[in-house]
């Protein structure tokens, strides 16, 4: 890696850290579990590094095999992580439907 690329990478890192701080500190505690599972799924982007290792030009067989395991675990995180996050967020989304019956009950009680 030449110094110019390194400096650019450090810029990207620092800006992402700053942006991450700004964005994530606005997430309410209500959603902290989905947040953790979502960022987990997002960091499953190491899948693309794993894909390169598993099949790109210039890597020997042992690297392909390590890459295969890495692709598997990263894919588990991506598919599982997004799947579970969606399942959780769906539960938080159903406020209106959930609130109606209890409001109706209240009417009935009166």
């Amino acid at each position, binding site marked *: *890696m030449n*110094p110019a*690329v390194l400096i650019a*990478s450090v810029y*990207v*890192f620092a800006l*992402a*850290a700053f942006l991450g701080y700004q*964005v*994530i500190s606005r*997430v*309410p*505690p*209500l959603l*902290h*579990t*989905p*947040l*953790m*599972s*979502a*960022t987990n799924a*997002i*960091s*499953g*982007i*190491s*899948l*693309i*590094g*794993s894909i390169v*290792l*598993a*099949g790109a*030009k210039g890597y*020997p067989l*042992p*690297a392909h095999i*390590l*890459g*295969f*395991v*890495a*692709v598997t*675990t*990263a*894919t*588990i*995180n991506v*598919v*599982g*992580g997004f*799947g*579970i996050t*969606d399942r959780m*967020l769906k539960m938080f989304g159903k*406020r209106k439907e*959930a609130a109606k019956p*209890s409001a109706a*009950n209240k009417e009935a009680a009166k």
Partner: protein
Amino acid sequence: MSLTSYFMEATYLVASILFILSLKMMSHPETARKGMFLAEGGMFAAVIGTLVGAHIVTWVWIIAGLTVGSIIGAWMAVSVPMTAMPQRTALSHAFGALAAALVGIGEFVTKANEMGAITRGALGFEVMLGALTTTGSLIAAGKLQGVIAGKPVQFRGQNVLNLLIGLGMVSSFVFFWIHPETVVAFYSMLALAFVFGVMLVIPIGSADMPVVMSLLNSYAGLAAAATGFVLGNNVLIIAGTLDGFSGFILSVLMCKAMNRSITNVLFGGFGAVIAEAGAGNAGGVMREISLDDAAMQLAFANRVVFVPGYGLATAQAQHACRELGELLESRGVTVKYAIHPVAGRMPGHMNVLLAEANVPYSSLYEMEQINPEFPSTDVAVVIGANDVVNPDARDNPKSIIAGMPILEVDRARSVIVLKRGQGRGFSGLENPLFFKPCTTMLYGDAKSSLSHLAQAVQHV
């Protein structure tokens, strides 16, 4: 650069933007789900871009990995119950970190000799963080699942031993960095990192898991970011850093919620300290209340606040709790739920459990929001929570949990504590709340107590 490479880079840029947008949309439950679709789109684009632009020559390993991973991932996504979310998340930290570590090892096997000093440094970080997070997260998952005893494992000289292992790991890293041709140094760094991960997590008790989970989250993210540095790949740096910082912010929040420092969590061994300091006696008698009296109190209250702790989840009483809540609401009682930040085994866990039981999120209140409301609350119902409502944290500077922010239920007009028995509960700490004149105890399994309460309320 060829056209396909430009295409690949473009998908990475798109993915980075979509990831950031998706996290921004996480700031509200109404938009969060839509945001996740964006992130999924970004991920899909980046994968397609890589397959097109990365000069793939061997497809079999990629396709096999994607297939196996998708099947396991989809199975996990559908089948994991919400109560098991902490274990699932710990496991996924392990998977993410393992992927990072493996990519690092692969780079080392293939390109160790062509690497410059900077890349080598990043590679060392990637592999170290990846390896220690893998084993650490597996131990955490094991503890949460109950496969490994949740009690802190401690022995004399533990911190010294850990320090030695840590030092050994770091010095192997430095040696490898200076002499890249010494394969032994690289592999001993890897091996020591695996051991170090185990050693870091075994002394930590289950109650401290929210902090550990967040820290491991942070490490897993940073490992992915280091991978980005090794591969010179910006989307990896961005996604990894976002993950790393999210974990870091959550660890700080969790530590604040327990009034402890990160070093104290990692090296303090909470459970062991209490055995000595927990002798302080609040004294007095606990008054028991009958089901019918409790139901009467609830039915004629104006404002009721439920305070759920992890005991609610272990008793699987979320649904029973929501049913009682709805019943009270139908009688015109205002019902709110007070959620302490560490109520559960990971950040935000209790919110998810209650949301699953159909409690509308508008009824869930954070500690800062609900505390001023306790003085005007008629009945606070504490269900399987203990330390987070312990007034000693506020009043007794000598208490081991002194300074920890609590839900101030003792300011409510009356308190009903649902508890299994008269024992001291999870942390072994005496709780003066139970002896206050405004407090009454309802013993028994939380789930059956709550459903019996609901029946009794119907007959009032």
